[in-house]
């Protein structure tokens, strides 16, 4: 190891580039070349925590039950916008078994996302937090919140995106409801439109999608007078710790956050929630552990969503190429202070020479957005990739061929920097072969019944996924030869424990089953949020370096124990091997007794002046019943270029799951809000339609599987987001191919398909 030094790094998170600092020591390792056979990496391994998951022994936050634990329930605003003038909790407090009630007039200040309290004076959506009760049981707490009298002054509200953009809408922010969030221009768009052979202009809409993680957001807090321990269903234990620090103004040494198993995280569990602060405040006030877990209904009111969008796209074509692009997007961000950028894919996916894009955040009194698996990119890809097909149709060219002329270039069109690797053209080739693109006919083909039409469509995908520092890992050899890997990450269901064990085992030269992985605890080394497809690419390289450091130290110790020169020793399949002898690791550990080898590793910065991206393409084969408007997805071929595949089994699961969630977005999922009342009308799993097993088509998963050796020491990139991005557009393009009808609103419900069919008929 050498001296610690500070290096600048550029990392991408949710479509934005950030500069950061990396503290590094020694030198990084180089990624193995393509085609290298590695002992663990690249092999399908069942999850190392599988037994815990299938026996019910895996402990989720919901399952934490502590002696003396109280249950907290939050009173939420029934109004979309109102001023809280007074809160009377006397009746609630008088109920036997109720221990505490907090609200804006008695709760300590607790900063949350730029506001100084978790209970606002002006509640701004149905579901906004007004008060919280701690009681012996959840049932009692629910009964108690019904007894709290709140004096509301009801104010005018607006929940709908397009209504909030109108002149006469209630003004929710000083500068109006529409706030510019991003723009990009290059080339001369006006001139290109003037000289175009073909121009299309279309408006696309996407509805609000609700995360509906099966484990609702929740936390259990325990205060022992010294340390606040919080179990939370989260994608970032360190983020929750930071949020609690800001809210409670405790030093970090007094806050510990734990997330062992967690029941689904698709972006909305990125940091501390008001429920976590409620649990912590009530635990500190009552001296009892407090559990605050949202109900399904609360989950769908106040735990975030993928915002609805309105998008206009205008494209020009000439000489078989796309010559100009205009893409403007408005997102319903609710009360969110941030917005995902739907024009991200338009800005980066192709080498469009003349481009003009703008993105706006629109403030409303609907529940706030939060990141939802490829935020912005799912919505934006639906629009731009639909529009490209519309232009291809007008130009009379094959839509895949049109994309080929603009994709797969060596440099990132937004930054001008070279890609570390871009194999999107391979994705096209593999996908076209698997779906049988050559049999695609303009106008589609006959379906399996007289009323069905069949068609093929495709769409491209771009996303970050390069990860970056800081991320740390340690590897301990115990006295009995067992190995413990600690990393600051958490397994949100993607198989993080397993792939990190594979990386560690690979570098150490031991079996994957011999690595115990301890993650999801702020008492361990720091690790980043599990979001933005960055976990593997951020934490994996640190694990590899920690394992290498541990191996080097262990071999140095073994040299002393065996009285053999270090240079003659290596580790192979759990043994220290020298010329003539094979000694089990455990034998050497036993001799070392409790002299402990501790290896550590940190993530090195990303290479300078490059652009690290993931690419992919989805192909859809669909039938449409032209009488009912029902879309039957027969097959999705999903091809992704994400660098080296560490575990083909869990990687395929990620892609299948992404496609299924994407089909929900494409076909059935839509939050319905009553405009007059501002209430979510389908805040449950009966009326909000997430896909069931019956909705799943044949899904063919293919990977380019070429290591991105410039990106990091594994050559691996992220896969969380890529598979949800292009599916909806591929389906929309297949529907248009099948029927001639262009459905420009996701989800493509039967009503919207029938409307598009009627429009197509009227137009022909």
């Amino acid at each position, binding site marked *: 190891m050498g001296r610690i030094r500070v290096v600048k790094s550029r990392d991408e998170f949710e479509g934005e580039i950030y500069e950061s600092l990396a503290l590094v020591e020694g030198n990084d390792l180089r990624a193995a070349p393509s085609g290298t056979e590695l002992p663990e990496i690249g092999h399908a391994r069942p999850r190392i925590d599988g037994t815990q998951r299938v026996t019910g022994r895996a402990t989720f936050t919901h399952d934490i039950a502590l002696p003396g634990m109280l249950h907290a329930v939050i009173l939420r605003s029934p109004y979309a916008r109102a001023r809280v003038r007074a809160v009377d909790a006397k009746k609630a407090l008088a109920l036997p078994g109720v221990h505490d009630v907090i609200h804006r007039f008695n709760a300590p200040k607790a900063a949350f996302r730029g506001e100084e309290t978790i209970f606002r004076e002006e509640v701004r959506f149905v579901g906004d937090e007004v008060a919280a009760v701690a009681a012996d049981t959840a049932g009692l707490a629910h009964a108690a919140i019904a007894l709290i009298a709140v004096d509301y002054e009801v104010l005018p509200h607006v929940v709908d995106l397009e209504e909030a953009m109108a002149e006469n809408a209630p003004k929710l922010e000083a500068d109006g409801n529409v706030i510019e969030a991003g723009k990009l221009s290059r080339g001369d768009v006006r001139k290109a439109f003037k000289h175009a052979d073909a121009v299309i202009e279309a408006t696309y809409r996407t509805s609000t999608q609700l995360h509906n993680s099966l484990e609702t957001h929740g936390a259990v807090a325990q205060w022992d007078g010294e340390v606040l321990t919080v179990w939370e269903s989260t994608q970032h234990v360190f983020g929750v710790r930071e949020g609690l620090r800001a809210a409670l103004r405790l030093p970090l040494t007094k806050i510990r956050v734990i997330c062992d198993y967690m029941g689904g995280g698709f972006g909305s569990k990125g940091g501390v929630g008001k429920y976590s602060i409620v649990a912590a405040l009530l635990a500190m006030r009552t001296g009892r552990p407090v559990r605050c877990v949202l109900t399904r209904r609360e989950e769908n009111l106040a735990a975030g969503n993928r915002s609805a969008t309105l998008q206009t796209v205008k494209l020009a074509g000439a000489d078989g190429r796309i010559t100009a692009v205009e893409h403007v997007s408005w997102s319903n961000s609710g009360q969110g202070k941030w917005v995902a950028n739907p024009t991200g894919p338009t800005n980066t996916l192709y080498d469009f020479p003349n481009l003009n894009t703008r993105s706006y955040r629109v403030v409303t009194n609907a529940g706030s957005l939060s990141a939802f698996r490829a935020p912005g990119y799912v919505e934006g890809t639906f629009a731009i990739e639909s529009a490209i097909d519309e232009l291809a149709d007008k130009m009379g060219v094959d839509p895949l061929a049109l994309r080929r002329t603009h994709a797969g270039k060596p440099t990132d069109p937004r930054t001008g920097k070279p890609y570390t690797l871009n194999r999107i053209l391979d994705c096209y080739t593999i996908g076209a072969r698997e779906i049988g693109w050559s049999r695609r006919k303009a106008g589609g083909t006959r379906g399996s019944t007289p009323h069905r039409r069949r068609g093929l469509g495709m769409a491209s995908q771009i996303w970050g996924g390069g990860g970056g520092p800081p991320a740390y890992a340690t590897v301990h050899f115990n006295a009995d030869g067992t190995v413990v890997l600690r990393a600051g990450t958490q397994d949100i269901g993607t198989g993080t424990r397993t792939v990190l064990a594979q990386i560690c085992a690979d570098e150490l030269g031991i079996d994957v089953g011999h690595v115990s992985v301890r993650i999801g605890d702020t008492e361990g080394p720091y690790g980043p949020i599990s979001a933005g497809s960055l976990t593997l690419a951020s934490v994996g390289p640190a694990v590899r370096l920690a394992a290498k450091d541990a191996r080097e130290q262990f071999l140095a110790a073994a040299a002393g124990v065996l009285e053999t020169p270090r240079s003659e020793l290596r580790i192979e399949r759990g043994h220290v091997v020298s010329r003539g002898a094979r000694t089990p690791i455990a034998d050497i550990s036993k001799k070392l007794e409790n002299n402990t080898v501790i290896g550590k590793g940190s993530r090195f910065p990303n290479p300078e002046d490059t652009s690290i991206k993931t690419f992919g393409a989805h192909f859809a084969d669909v039938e449409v019943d032209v009488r009912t408007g029902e879309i039957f997805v027969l097959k999705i071929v999903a091809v992704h270029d994400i660098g080296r595949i560490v575990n083909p089994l869990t990687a395929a*699961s990620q892609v299948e799951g992404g496609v299924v969630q994407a089909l929900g977005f494409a076909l059935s999922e839509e939050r319905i809000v009553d405009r007059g009342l501002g209430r979510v009308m389908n805040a449950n799993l009966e009326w909000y339609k997430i896909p069931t097993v019956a909705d799943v088509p044949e899904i063919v998963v293919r990977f380019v599987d070429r290591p991105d050796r410039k990106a990091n020491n594994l050559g691996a990139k992220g896969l969380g987001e890529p598979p949800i991005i292009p599916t909806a557009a591929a389906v929309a393009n297949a529907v248009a191919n099948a029927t001639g009808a262009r459905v420009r609103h996701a989800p493509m419900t039967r009503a919207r398909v029938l409307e598009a069919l009627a429009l197509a008929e009227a137009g022909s």
Partner: protein
Amino acid sequence: MERMPLFRGPDAIDVALDVNGRKVSVRVGPLRSLLDTLRDSLGLTGTKKVCNEGDCGACTVLVDGRPVYSCITLAVACEGRAVETIEGISSNGTLHPVQQAFIEHDAYQCGFCTPGQVMSIVALLRANASPSADDVKRAVTGNLCRCGAYTNIVKAGVAAAKEAKA
């Protein structure tokens, strides 16, 4: 011999259940769900609460061998009946073939719906030793999986049946 009264309640009463082959007695109110009884009174937290209104199947357990949504099953209605949960289907440390198949086929992601999915397929295999993929789909059609692990869940169900017969 003490005689059981004909009518009990309306307040909380002691209910005798057979849970995973063990006789237990729990004091429950008339509206207490089997799910809350299992999780909160008996500490069997393998069974999950997701919607608490019979929409999602995460709380699926077997009552007298048939899969039920335990969130909308009253505990008092299970008096004297055999309740099986995810904690009870492996024996002496040997996983049930369905559990083993779930691991081998990566038939989960976050794992929150897994206990319910497994119990639905266990019930299917008892009724039909050679289910087709469509039979497995029908068996888990009331079990939502937000991570979208359905393809592997169906594969695991079919493979488990073959393994159980072998």
